[in-house]
Structures are given as structure tokens and as C-alpha cells.
């Protein structure tokens, strides 16, 4: 009578747990709905709504242009400083918001975690995914600015989706570590803004990475956001410094972050419902 019905075995897990991506795939609709909820809710009670997606990077760019571009005369690889900074700030904000949202996602969805079963990876994953909408809005402004400054992308632009993916992987990788830690240690909540600020200056957003000489520049790629930011400038603004080796280093580090984060997350997952 019961042939064909899947048998689920509930038992204590030990050691490192397989990621069980098939289970995650089964719950793809929940992933969709949670991302959709995050997007819907995020701007529902704000006056300016989705405009915030543009205001954040845009005004950071204005401030950077004033202080770093005008006053400090930071070089910008021969491109007008505002667009030099903004092209980096768009993926940066996607990354930073992704970390911020995902780090607090498990704690923020505590009632779900205590009351319903689903692969917990869905929660931080949906947080990062929901940032894609903001990215698209901010990116549209970037295109407008390029038009204004009379800069047209080269065929390198086809790499852009992969660069966004790199930012996504990095953000999710860091987000997984932080969200799992946050369940145990609420200190993470206080660390995240600090971490993001620190990371902002450790990434060539206000300045070009060409300030560094080789091999330091390539080594700089250990910060995966260096690869993302330099990649964005190269793909859109055609800066002549091809970030080839940086990209390789950045991609490897990002993958290590993600895979490590996923396994660490999986390992802590079993205690989430009891602790959160």
C-alpha cells in the first residue's frame, strides 16, 4: 500500500553533514516566496520606497567624489571620478546589503525556524537574492550616468553576469558564516556594520587598485570584492587594467568562502531551532 512513498529518517546527525542540495531544490518555491516577501516588505513602510536602492549608492558616490575625487585628488584610471566610484558602488552595495540582510536573517525569521521545517539555507539565500532587485535599479542609474558621460561599454560587458555572480557568491559565503554565528552569538549584529565599513575601505572603490604594484595588486584579489569591483570597471568603463589574475584569485577565494560557509552552516543547522 505504501510503495513509492518516500521514507524520511529522523535521527541525530554527526560530524559534517552533506549539503543536501536536492532538498533545497524541492523548496525552491519557498525560496521564491521568501525573496519576494523580503522585496515587498522592505520598502512598504518607507516614504521613498524603492528609491532607497538608488539613493544609497548614489549619495555615497557624491560624497566620495567631493572628498576623494575633488579634495584628495585620488586618481581614477583616467575616467571621470563620479562614474569611476559609482560603477564600483553598485556591486558593492549589493554585496554589503546582502551580508547585512543574510547575517540577521536567521534571527529575524526565528519564529519560522522554531515552528516549521525547511532547509535553513533558504533563509540567508533568499536574503541575498532579494538584493538583486535593488541592484537592477541602481544599475539602471549607472547606465544613465554612462550615457551622460558619453562612455559606452565594450563587448566585455558580456562578463557582467558572471561578475554579479561573483559578488553574489561572496556575499552569500560571508552571509552564511555570519548568519550561523549570529544564532549563537548576537555579537554578530554589532560586528556586521563594522565589518562592512572596514571592508569598504579594503576594496578599491574610492581609489583604483592600480595604485598598487604587482604582485601586491594580484594578491589584493584575496578580497573577492576587488575582483568584482575591478571587473565591473573593466567590463563597463573599459579601464585598461585587465583584471585577469585578480579575477582568478578572487573567484577561488569566493568559492572557498561559499563552500566553507555552507558546510559550517549545515553543521550548526541542527541546533538552530533549539537556540535561536
Amino acid at each position, binding site marked *: *500500500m*505504501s510503495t513509492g*512513498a*518516500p*521514507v*524520511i*529518517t*529522523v*535521527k*541525530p*546527525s554527526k560530524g559534517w553533514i552533506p549539503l543536501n542540495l536536492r532538498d533545497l531544490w524541492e523548496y525552491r*518555491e*519557498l525560496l*521564491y*516566496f*521568501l525573496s519576494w*516577501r523580503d522585496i*515587498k*516588505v522592505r520598502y*512598504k*513602510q518607507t516614504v521613498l520606497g524603492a528609491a532607497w536602492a538608488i539613493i544609497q549608492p548614489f549619495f555615497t558616490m557624491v560624497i566620495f567624489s567631493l572628498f576623494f575625487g575633488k579634495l584628495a585628488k585620488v586618481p581614477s584610471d583616467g575616467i571621470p571620478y563620479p562614474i569611476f566610484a559609482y560603477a564600483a558602488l553598485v556591486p558593492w552595495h549589493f554585496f554589503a546589503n546582502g551580508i547585512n540582510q543574510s547575517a540577521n536573517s536567521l534571527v529575524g*525569521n526565528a*519564529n*519560522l*525556524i*522554531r*515552528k*516549521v*521545517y*525547511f532547509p535553513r539555507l533558504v533563509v540567508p539565500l533568499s536574503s541575498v537574492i532579494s538584493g538583486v532587485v535593488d541592484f537592477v535599479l541602481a544599475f539602471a542609474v549607472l547606465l544613465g550616468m554612462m550615457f551622460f558621460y558619453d562612455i559606452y561599454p565594450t563587448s566585455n560587458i558580456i562578463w557582467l553576469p558572471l561578475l554579479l555572480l561573483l559578488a553574489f557568491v561572496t556575499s552569500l559565503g560571508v552571509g552564511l558564516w555570519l548568519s550561523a554565528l549570529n*544564532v*549563537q*552569538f*548576537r*555579537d554578530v549584529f554589532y560586528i556586521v556594520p563594522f565589518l562592512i565599513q572596514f571592508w569598504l575601505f579594503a576594496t578599491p572603490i574610492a581609489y583604483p587598485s592600480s595604485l598598487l604594484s604587482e604582485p601586491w595588486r594580484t594578491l589584493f584579489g584575496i578580497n573577492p570584492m576587488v575582483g568584482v569591483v575591478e571587473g565591473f570597471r573593466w567590463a563597463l568603463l573599459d579601464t585598461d587594467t585587465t583584471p585577469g589574475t585578480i579575477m582568478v584569485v578572487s573567484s577561488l577565494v569566493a568559492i572557498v568562502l561559499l563552500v566553507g560557509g555552507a558546510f*559550517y552552516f549545515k*553543521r*550548526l543547522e*541542527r*541546533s538552530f*531551532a*533549539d*537556540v*535561536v
Partner: protein
Amino acid sequence: MSDIVIRVNGLSKKYRIGGRRESYRTLRDSLTGAFLSPFRRARRLLSGQPYGAAELDKTIWALKGISFEIKRGEVVGIIGRNGAGKTTLLKILSRITEPTEGYAEIRGRVGSLLEVGTGFHPELTGRENIYLNGAILGMKKAEIARKFDEIVEFAEIDKFIDTPVKHYSSGMYVRLAFAVAAHLEPEILLVDEVLAVGDASFQKKCLKKMDDVAKKGQTVLFVSHNMQGVKGLCTKGILLEKGDLKEIGEVGRVVDSYLMADINSCDMERIWESQEVAPGNDRIRLRRIRLIPETGDRSKLITTSTPVKVQADYWNLVANTKLILNLALYTIDGCIAFVSMTTEESNWHGRGFPKGLFRSVCYIPAHLLNEGIYRIRLLFLDDDAIHLYDNEEAMIFTVHDINDRGIKWYGRWQGILRPKLQWTTDYVEHL
């Protein structure tokens, strides 16, 4: 019918005492710990057991090696006192939390309903929440779309479907939440005490829906404190007591043994031998609090038709106090059922109490309290209404329901009180 859908074997769950909400700790604790034994701490953190001082903490076993089997189509009531492990069992079966030992095998799609409206977002409209909540409960989008009209109709909120649920009344909110849950069609349904919501007519609808579910041959595990509901809906009962499986079998028998066990283990009396250990202060100290059910037989079960005496023995420590004892009865949700005072009695009221031991007794008549859990608060005042001593939780007791209603309705009777009032019906005019 040897078609077993749930097989539980030696299932145990250990919790750290102190409750899960307090169990996350700050990094500082772990860092100070790290100075003490850096390598062990680091390994713990990485291995997913970042409980810095786990070995120092006390643990409790919420479940202690329970085993049972459930066949397809059985509707099982899980009963037991608070803390018996009922919810923990459901949480393990629905994979929310892992067992510490043992295993469970589950054959078929599981839907769990530990709370109505999990994941409802106040900013989203009713329509949006139906989809979101449905997805959270494990329904497919197409499935929700197909049942959408049915859900809206069941919840009786069609006019407000595009209003954010934060503008809903609590009744509407609960109706919508239950409606989504009720349309979940898993092969195995795990339900935790969700019938305690909504108004009477809606409850009736929910019970009927549950009944339909059961008749369709779905397997249901149902946690409840409502013994009538369990008896009415379930075919099989599981009695848990402090993490042990006490009894499993025909539902009527299991419910009866629960009620009997409840009386024997229930604290009907609290005594403090000396003033040193007694709760109170330099004005008043409690000596003894006692519940005396006037059942007329040997059973001490308090039902809705049992008169109960509440007896409080206390020391008055300051001579010539004009004492007033105020008894407040609260429901488990914190509503006051009633307040009564010793101003009603004539022996001592208004007189100065000398130092010494006193006994006041309050008589609660039969057919006044509803079924449920009540808390007694004792407040001692002087005649200037100055609080001398306040004991918020002097006694907690359960009033059970026995089926004396004469109707087929198993849900909880509405209201804080359930007085038996006099009624008349007359045939006024022939037609």
C-alpha cells in the same frame, strides 16, 4: 492493516535547562572561555557545539527513549501535562529539531502545524499571506492557486483579501491563518493545540474540517489539552509523562488514565513547615494553601461540576492588623475570572487580628469555572487597602471537562467562566 507510516524507536531529546531563548550567549563568554582552554573551545565552536560552558549547565531530557508505531489512517491524540514532551515529539517528527538519540522513520509527505499563521507578515495583504504561508507550510504554488477561493471562503474574509493583515481584527487574522492550514493536504498531519483559537462557530468548522481530514484516511497526530476534543476526534491516544511514554492505546482508556494520573500527581496542597522557609514578609507569612475538591467520592478530579474549597493558612506577624485577604482567580492567559475577599465573612472581618495563625476558606461553587488551567493569586491588605503581601502564584490547578453539556460539541466552551444558569422555555402560542 500492517501499514506503518511512523515508526519511532528509542527517541530522546536533551535540552539545556534555562530555555532556548536564554541559551545563546555572547561572544565575550566564549572568549573568556577561550582563554581558559583555547583548543577545546575552538574545536567546539567549529564542530557546531559552541556552548562554551556546556558541561557546567544542567540538562533535561524532554523525551526519554520513547518508541511507538502509527499506522496509516490513524488519528492519534498526544496528551500529557505541560512539559511532558508533546511538542518536542512533534518538533522532532516534523524535522524542526533533531533528536539526541534514537530515530524515527516517516513514510509520506508530512505537514506540520505547530502554530497557526506562522510566517504571516502584517504588511502583506491577505492574498499575499495566503501564498506565503502556504509555501511555508509546504504547499506548491499551483496547489495554493487551485485552493485559493476555497481558502478565502473558509476564512470568510473575501472583502478584505487585498487589505494588509495588520488591519485585520484578531478574529479575521486567525480565521485566515487556520483556513490556509486547513487546506494543507499532507499524508501525515502533525497538529499542536491549534483548536484553542477563534470563536465558537469557527471552531466548529475547524473541528469538522479535522474530522473530514481524518475520514479521508490521512494520518493525524494531534497534541491537545482538550480531552473532549481528543476523545471525539482521535482513535488512539499516546500519554506522555515527563518524557516517558506512559501509555498508548484506545483513546478513551488513555484519556482516563491521564485524568487519574493528573489527580494523583497534581499538587493540591502546599505546606511550609516554619516561618523561615515560608513565602511572605515581616507582616504575613503563608503556612499552607490547599485545594479541597468536594467530589463526594474518592477521586479528587476537579471538573466543571465540582465545588472546590480554597483554604489558606497564614501567620499574621503584626498584632492588631485589620486583615483582608483578597483572592483573585486568573485564567492561564492572565485574564481575571473573578476577585473575592474575606470582607464577605463575618467572624473576623473588621477586627484587629492578633499575632498568630489564621485560616481563611473560600468556597467556589460547582458549575462556575470553565475547563482549563487557573491560577490563584492571594493578596493581603489592611483595611486602608495597603498591600501587605502579594503572592501572584499561590496555586495552579486544572479544571477538567466532563461531558455534561448534552450536545455534541467537543471544542472548548467559550468564556472565562461557565456558570450553569437557570433557563426556561415555554410554549407560548399554538400555530
